[in-house]
């Protein structure tokens, strides 16, 4: 029987594994609808461990939006750790949802949200455990339609053999459109089988069906052409954009896990999109324009969410939260409202130029004072001009020092290594900066115990950004610069002991680079790696660089390309990129100009406060910037 619970078969396995709680479901605000009440069944997957996937906002939003429809049902599934996967294979238990413990194979659709490309092998593992053929072409009309979403879906070519569709942009509305199409096709008796269903889906705005597009390659290995194989599908697929976020106040009742997760707080997205124009930032580029939720819309989401969850911290999420046009009054009025309740507010990180002590104090007025995080991203002023995140060294030191002087003891600074045009000197300036911050901080606070944590990530060039043409720094380059940096920080022990350095080696970034800017030929590498046991590539204890490089060498050789070709090679202006037929709204010529300006260290301003500089998004997508201030304020909550 389809939709039947597998729990009785799963339960004996749970007694034999680590952290069984992550597989039992029953989270606060989760739901299990009767199978037969729904016409369309969605399994929603976050292709990483439960503790990472559960707090994911995108998945939570779609789960709720879909379940609000009487004709749809949505349940969640996550990557299964190897200990349980082995027992499932031994006992014939398939990939299941944590809500109803139903087999993923029974659902009409499997939606997978890719925040990062390192989840690809976990998709293959889940398909295999589910008993769904790995390749889309081998599936029939009884198998779920595999739909990829999330930022990585803006270049789905590396996984185009394994997914049936990719959805570009905001998911709130498009999941409804897809549901309608599947429902109608089922009600009509599945005419034309799976191919007809996919053709219908390909005509939904924002849905890309890779199998209807053919790639050819030139003698130099580059793409020669991407052509449609049917003329009833669009030549280019554009992204979806939700306007008026106040009309989409999801999640209304956020999920609260019993198990520990990476975010022990509820989150409210205060705006979507970012036009600061940081050139490395794919999220900022593909989510334009800026659309703010109003202060009153945010206020009611916070209120409803806290009542529904019992969390004691609210994260005010966005790509750059201190930029909300009413962030000051928002923080103050929320702090007033929750006075005496031990409810604290937090921002993911603060731009150095947007930080002020009043704001920071308001955020922590009623609760725990968490550490402060700034993300200068680049070590030197020069490289910060290249990435268009300009802030002077003096301003940076002054801001951090102000935080220390006002009672903060712990400040986190995020940087990237391997940025275009970067030299050893740019990276070594991170050490100078950290030393100066500690010196000035000790002086300003009169305390010896101020600390600064420097976190460094390797830069990976991403599609739909001005850096999409850049040659990625090799793992050796990254590792040698990080080594120099570590030596520089440790050279003065009296200061160095107040500085923590966190980083990963450069290897995972190279594979992420292959998967980010790869094309269809990379699919064979992913499959090979999974067949050889690769999964959980985002976890250092599972990631194997050697397995990836060996698979890449063998699987790419027949095409005359290799790992370096996809990663460290700089692209030329007119090369056809694997995502050119996917439209994020950004004008390719504008991106190229911005890339050239990066190389000559020129900055661009934010179009919220200066005239539009024609990135292309608003006219192409028919959207516009939506920002305040609204001038409204939060009413005190009436106590019942």
């Amino acid at each position: 029987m389809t939709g039947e619970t597998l729990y009785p078969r799963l339960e004996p396995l749970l007694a034999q594994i680590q952290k069984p709680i992550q597989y039992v479901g029953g989270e606060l605000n989760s739901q299990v609808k009767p199978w037969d009440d729904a016409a369309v069944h969605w399994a929603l997957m976050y292709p990483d461990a439960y503790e990472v996937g559960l707090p994911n906002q995108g998945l939570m939003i779609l789960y709720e939006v879909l379940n609000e429809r009487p004709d749809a049902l949505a349940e969640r599934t996550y990557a299964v750790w190897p200990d349980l996967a082995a027992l499932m294979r031994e006992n014939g238990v398939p990939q299941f949802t944590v809500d109803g413990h139903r087999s993923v194979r029974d659902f009409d659709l499997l939606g997978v949200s890719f925040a990062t490309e390192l989840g690809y092998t976990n998709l293959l593992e889940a398909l295999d455990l589910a008993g769904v053929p790995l390749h889309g072409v081998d599936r029939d009309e009884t198998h779920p339609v595999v739909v990829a979403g999330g930022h990585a879906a803006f270049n789905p070519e590396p996984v185009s053999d394994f997914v049936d569709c990719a959805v570009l942009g905001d998911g709130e509305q498009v999941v409804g459109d897809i549901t309608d199409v599947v429902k109608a096709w089922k009600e009509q008796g599945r005419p034309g089988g799976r191919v007809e269903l996919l053709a219908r889906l390909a005509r939904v705005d924002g849905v890309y069906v890779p199998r209807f597009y053919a790639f050819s390659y030139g003698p130099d290995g580059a793409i020669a052409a991407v052509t449609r194989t049917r003329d009833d599908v669009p030549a280019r697929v554009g992204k979806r954009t939700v306007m008026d976020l106040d009309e989409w106040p999801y999640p209304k009742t956020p999920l609260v896990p019993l198990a520990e997760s990476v975010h022990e707080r509820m989150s409210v997205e205060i705006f979507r999109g970012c036009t600061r124009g940081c050139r490395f930032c794919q999220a900022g580029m593909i989510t334009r324009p800026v659309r703010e939720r109003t202060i009153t819309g945010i206020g009611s989401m916070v209120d409803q969410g806290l009542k529904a969850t019992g969390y004691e911290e609210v994260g005010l999420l966005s790509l750059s939260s201190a930029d909300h046009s009413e962030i000051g009054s928002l923080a103050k009025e929320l702090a007033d409202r929750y006075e005496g309740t031990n409810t604290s507010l937090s921002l993911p990180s603060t731009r150095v130029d947007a930080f002020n002590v009043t704001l920071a104090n308001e955020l922590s007025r009623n609760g725990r004072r968490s550490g402060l995080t700034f993300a200068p991203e680049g070590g030197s002023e020069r490289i910060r001009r290249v990435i268009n995140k300009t802030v002077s060294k003096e301003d940076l030191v002054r801001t951090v020092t102000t935080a220390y002087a006002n009672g903060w003891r712990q400040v986190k600074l995020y940087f990237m290594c391997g940025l275009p045009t970067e030299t050893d000197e740019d990276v070594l300036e991170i050490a100078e900066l950290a030393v100066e911050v500690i010196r000035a901080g000790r002086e300003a606070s009169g305390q010896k115990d101020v600390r600064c944590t420097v976190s460094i990530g390797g830069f990976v060039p991403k599609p739909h950004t001005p850096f999409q043409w850049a040659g990625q720094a090799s793992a050796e380059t990254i590792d040698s610069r990080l080594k120099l940096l570590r030596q520089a920080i440790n050279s003065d022990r009296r200061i160095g002991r107040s500085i923590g350095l966190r980083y990963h080696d450069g290897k995972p970034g190279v594979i992420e680079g292959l998967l980010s800017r790869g094309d269809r030929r990379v699919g064979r590498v992913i499959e090979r790696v999974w067949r050889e046991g690769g999964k959980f590539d985002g976890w250092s204890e599972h990631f194997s660089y050697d397995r990836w490089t060996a698979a890449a060498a063998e699987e790419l050789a027949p095409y005359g390309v290799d790992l370096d070709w996809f990663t460290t090679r700089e692209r030329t202006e007119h090369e056809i990129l694997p995502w050119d037929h996917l439209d994020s709204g950004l004008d390719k010529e504008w991106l190229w100009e911005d890339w050239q300006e990066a190389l000559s260290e020129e900055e661009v301003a934010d179009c919220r406060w200066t005239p539009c500089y024609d990135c292309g998004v608003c006219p192409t997508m028919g959207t516009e910037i939506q920002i305040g201030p609204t001038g409204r304020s939060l009413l005190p909550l009436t106590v019942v």
Partner: protein
Amino acid sequence: MARQPDGPPPPPTVQKLRIRYAKRGRLRFASHRDLARTLERALRRAQVPMAFSAGFSPHPKISYLGAAPTGAASEAEYVEIGLSVRCDPEAVRAALDAALPQDVAVVDCVEAQEGTGSLADRIDTSVWRVELPGVAPGELRSAVEAFLAREVVTVAKRTKNGLRDIDARAPVTSAFAAEEGGCAILHVVVRQGTPAVRPDDVLAALAAVADLRPPLPPRAVREAQGRLDDTGTVADPLGPDRAASTRCQGEHATI
């Protein structure tokens, strides 16, 4: 000198409540930490006026007593909470029960009475019931007899510091085999100590003395905790508070 946040110190604890709760069904797979987090959030949703510690990281005043292991269900877990406003214990029980997931039930809630001593002092023993699907009741009976006949049964236990040999026999004050609907059931009463001997360890001991190897994972439920008296019964740890409270009734705010 330790830095203190600006503003007045948090309101003091004016009442302590002692709570017995159960974890059942799927939530037997919850760990002690999972339950602690869940309980804290449920207290907030139920708007129980918790007392908080002072400092930059205020914590609600909650003290937990030894928790049943992950994978074991329990009908008798205990926790003590401090309130900043006096409340009716039964109202707190009902509100908290409603705010917790279905598989966690608040069974009992009483006000801690002055002079009755600490809750921890009233708990030294656990009463377990272990279902052994697939084990023949007769086989379990003879295994239990063999176990009880021994003075010492050494088993390897995984502790924080790696594998360690412990005696699983001495803390067991009684054990017997029963049968329900064809399923063998082990009833065992174990004194708490360090390292704790738990149903898993007793089963490892049965494997060691009688080669009893359940084909399916056993299901353990802690049925009661308390102080073992000379007659071999385990006393209700909330009894002394209940007895004292019938003598002095305070006035209560409602929540």
